[in-house]
């Protein structure tokens, strides 16, 4: 493979490569207008009276403020009004068309998951599943939905998965990384079992409302620490899934880690392997080295892209993980958006580039 620093001017002038964007965030224009049609009157009244209470210590809004208002690019507000990510036509003209997005995976956030009232969480997730089809995938064939499940109630989650299983509007099942218990614990196994039955990957997006601090050492002071904490938090959930034996129990499970970085994966795997060699008897149900299980079962989205100096270290990292295991993502319309022509700061071979930007996603989601 040739290694060359990018010539930024030349990059701008190139014809844009077709890409998959595995992390796009749609938002309802208006919850009463777009979501209420799929919520029973009982839950509409509940929402009007009590609102949405998340499993976190802060009563309203996210636990930490964001890098920009609504966590969004300041140029992503639709000209006709509404929040970033709420207008399909504007998403087409600002992102899907100019960036040549052939496949976009929708990941709705703050849309029913992590809600303390379990029955409301289930009803809201179901409404958002209807909404994604009605407002997005039925109008734009490049977009695929994520099957929203109220993951703290696994039996309700299984019901939702079984309801939609086989529906080609959905590409994956979506969970958030900050669950109430470490994600590998048996409470969550029915979700993994149903995912295998439906032949859908399970995507775990950073963020969420587990009730515990984002770090192992307590609540940090700054948003910048929460941004770093997503990687730490995701390493914990992956460790839990490996050592609890999830990948042994569900050999066809595909796990996608979304927006948590990826450069930490080699170091984590080395540590897991080293400890497994020494303490295997504590967890005899893990019959293979953790790194092997991770290579077989885990994919990662690329945004926010690692930016090491010297940049060549990025190649070493990706080669260890495997070029076939990374899925390009922009995080549109959020502020930490990765611009497709600038995101990969090194020049790589055609085969790796096509895999990284498009083919890995088409294969993983069975869309070839």
């Amino acid at each position, binding site marked *: 493979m040739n290694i060359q*620093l990018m*010539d*930024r001017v030349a990059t*701008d002038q190139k014809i844009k490569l077709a890409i998959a964007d595995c992390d796009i965030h749609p938002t309802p224009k208006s919850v009463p207008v777009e979501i209420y049609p799929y919520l029973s009157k009982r839950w509409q009244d509940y929402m009007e009276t009590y609102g949405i209470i998340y499993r976190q210590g802060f009563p309203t809004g996210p636990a930490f403020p964001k*890098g*920009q208002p609504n966590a969004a*690019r*300041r*140029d992503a507000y639709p000209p006709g009004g509404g929040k970033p990510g709420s207008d399909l036509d504007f998403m087409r003209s600002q992102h899907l068309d100019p960036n040549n997005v052939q496949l976009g995976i929708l990941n709705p956030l703050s849309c029913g998951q992590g809600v303390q009232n379990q029955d409301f969480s289930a009803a809201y997730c179901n409404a958002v599943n209807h909404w994604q089809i009605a407002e997005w995938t039925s109008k734009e064939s490049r977009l695929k939905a994520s099957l929203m499940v109220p993951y703290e109630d696994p039996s309700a989650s299984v019901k939702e998965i079984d309801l939609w299983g086989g529906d080609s509007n959905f590409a994956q099942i979506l969970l958030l990384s900050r669950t109430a218990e470490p994600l590998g614990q048996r409470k969550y196994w029915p979700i993994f079992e149903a995912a295998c039955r439906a032949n859908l990957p399970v995507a775990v997006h950073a963020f969420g409302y587990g009730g515990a601090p984002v770090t192992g050492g307590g609540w940090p002071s700054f948003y910048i620490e929460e941004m770093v904490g997503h990687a730490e938090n995701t390493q914990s959930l992956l460790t839990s899934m490996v050592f609890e034996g999830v990948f042994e129990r569900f050999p066809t499970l595909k796990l996608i880690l979304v927006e948590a970085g990826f450069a930490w994966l080699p170091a984590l795997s080395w540590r897991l392997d080293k400890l497994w060699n020494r303490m295997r008897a504590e967890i005899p149900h893990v019959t293979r080295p953790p790194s092997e299980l991770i290579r077989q079962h885990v994919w990662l989205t690329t945004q926010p892209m690692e930016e090491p*100096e010297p940049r060549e270290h990025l190649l070493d990292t990706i080669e260890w993980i495997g070029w076939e295991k990374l899925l390009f993502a922009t995080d549109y319309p959020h*502020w*930490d*958006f*990765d*611009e497709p*022509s*600038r*995101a990969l700061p090194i020049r790589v071979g055609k085969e790796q580039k096509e895999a990284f930007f498009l083919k890995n996603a088409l294969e993983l989601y069975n869309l070839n």
Partner: protein
Amino acid sequence: MSKYVVAAANEILPGQRKLVNVRGRPILIFNLDGDYFGILDRCPHQGASLCKGQLVGLVESDRPGQYNFTRNNEIIRCAWHGWEFDIRTGKSRCEPEKIKATQYNINTKTGSEIIEEAYEAETFDVAVEDNYVVVHL
């Protein structure tokens, strides 16, 4: 070097900014208390339009717990990732030592210079001549 008239001076009052196009280049003109500055409307990080960014001041700190806020509205903060650029120099605020040490030489570039220049927004001389804003390009 050629000169291009891009606006009448009273079109860009102190504190205002205007996006103009000179020979195909989008250039953002600022008026800071009567001084005019021009920055290429493309963030050197990932290419966002700086025009959509937020005008902010300079927050500095000598030690934790102490804050100095100066130069209100003299910094443009990118609409995407929040990179801050000094409108008077075009330089990024986050790595000033590294950037000060780098000369902007457009004729001879090595790979390492390209990396360092990537953190400096391209700037243009802007002057008021007979009440017109003129870009030297």
